[in-house]
């Protein structure tokens, strides 16, 4: 009997809804050397970068899958000579196109090429509102003036403008000036984004992490400005979770909404996941984006089935998705544990101890450079 009627197959889970966004890290090359760069400590060398034809195929697959937005980033995405061509292909496929740039190489020619290609939006990063400090943090003399000129070019091209300010202990007291600057430039949107402590940021944590009082000051400034500028300028605010009681919903949950492709073609649920051991992340040179989305690496921490306690029975489990897997690994050495940023984590005290370091004098930066020894 059992040979004729095999036992019923286990139910196949329904396919996960398609990704909303594709983060295309085109290159790790960058003229700036910010000590909190979100790139991994081990940067991809230029020789390993995906060729244009692979990116074009990935973009076509993304459009077919239902990806709604593509974020061209890096490193500095303008370092890729084929950027405008990639933007054109994505825009043609109906994908909303965004570039995240330092702006220092956004000259008239680059701006015109991107505009012609159909770029929808550009996010321009600043390291500080104080030009000298801006240039010191980025390790690039004259960067502030070039960024200011880039902002005018973006406006001149008739594109919506987002300014991104990265906040850390040296500039946390200048958030009001940053917002005033964004208002002056009539930016539609500004990101006041505290450093996230992974990779280079984690390496430089003692030099960057603000005190709780600094964080609270910046939060108050942002909340007052949001009230004042409602309907005029959108302010997105990102906090460092070292002073938090609950973790962030990192990437909207592991492999729930995004695919991130590294310069060398590795497909990751977020830009920091490359640091996690024990994963065989697929490479878009070998597999399609649809295969990436259903790969073991993407399914491993998707949803709630993987969760240990205290997440498993927590009523916030589908709000924060257990927090950040990379932070659990970075602090606890196990990506499958509750994010220690959560006060319900038995290891939450490790975050509090690190936060206490923020009261000590700041050490010098370790600048982000290709070829820096990884220790």
């Amino acid at each position, binding site marked *: 009997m059992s040979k004729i009627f095999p036992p019923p197959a286990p139910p196949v889970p329904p396919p996960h*809804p*398609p990704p*909303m966004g594709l983060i295309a890290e085109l290159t790790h090359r960058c003229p700036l050397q910010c000590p909190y760069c979100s790139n991994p400590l081990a940067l991809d060398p230029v020789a390993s970068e995906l060729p244009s034809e692979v990116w074009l195929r990935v973009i076509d697959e993304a459009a*077919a*899958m*239902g990806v*709604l*937005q593509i*974020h061209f980033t890096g490193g500095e995405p303008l370092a890729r000579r084929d950027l405008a061509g990639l933007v054109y292909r994505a825009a043609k496929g*109906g994908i*909303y196109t*965004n570039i995240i740039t330092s702006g220092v190489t956004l000259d008239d020619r680059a701006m015109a090429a991107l505009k012609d290609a159909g770029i*929808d*939006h550009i*996010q321009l990063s600043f390291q500080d509102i104080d030009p000298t400090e801006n240039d010191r943090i980025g390790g690039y003399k004259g960067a502030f003036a070039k960024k200011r000129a880039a902002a005018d070019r973006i406006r001149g091209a008739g*594109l*919506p403008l*987002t300014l991104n300010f990265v906040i850390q202990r040296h500039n946390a007291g200048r958030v009001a000036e940053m917002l005033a600057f964004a208002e002056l430039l009539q930016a*539609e*949107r500004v990101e006041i984004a505290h450093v996230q402590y992974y990779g280079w940021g984690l390496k430089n944590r003692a030099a960057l992490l603000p005190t709780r009082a600094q964080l609270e000051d910046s939060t108050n400034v942002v909340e007052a400005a949001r009230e004042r500028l*409602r*309907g005029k300028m*959108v302010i*997105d605010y990102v906090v460092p979770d070292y002073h938090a009681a609950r973790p962030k919903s990192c990437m909207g949950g592991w492999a729930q909404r995004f695919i991130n492709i590294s310069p060398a073609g590795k497909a990751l649920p977020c830009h920091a996941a490359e640091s996690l051991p024990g994963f065989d992340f697929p490479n878009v040179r070998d597999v399609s984006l649809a295969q990436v989305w259903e790969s073991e690496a993407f399914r491993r921490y998707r949803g709630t089935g993987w969760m240990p306690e205290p997440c498993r029975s927590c009523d916030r489990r589908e709000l924060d998705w257990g927090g950040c897997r990379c932070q659990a690994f970075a602090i606890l050495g196990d990506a499958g544990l509750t994010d220690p940023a959560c006060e319900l984590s038995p290891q939450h005290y490790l975050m509090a101890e690190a936060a206490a370091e923020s009261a000590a004098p700041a050490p010098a930066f370790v600048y982000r450079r290709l070829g820096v020894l990884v220790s």
Partner: protein
Amino acid sequence: MPSALSEAESAAVPRFGAGMKLRFDQVRDAWVVLGPERLFLPDEHAVEVLKLVDGTRSVAAIAATLAEKFAAPAAAIEADIWPMLQDLSARGAVRL
């Protein structure tokens, strides 16, 4: 019962925020609003309103069109869509 709109509110002309696009997504079989590093999945009521946002129609004109389409009193529709438009405005999707 939501209160009636002021004259200025009825005369307001909503338009999409800079960089905001209303698009039909074939894969999800749904309308989406795409914008600078954000997206919205509007419900069916919001979709009906957003399809009429063109930078020339006033709130009153949008309500009148919907009143005809759904055979409902325009004043009630105005009162319904105003808080929706204000919410979309706070998120940067539309400007009022």
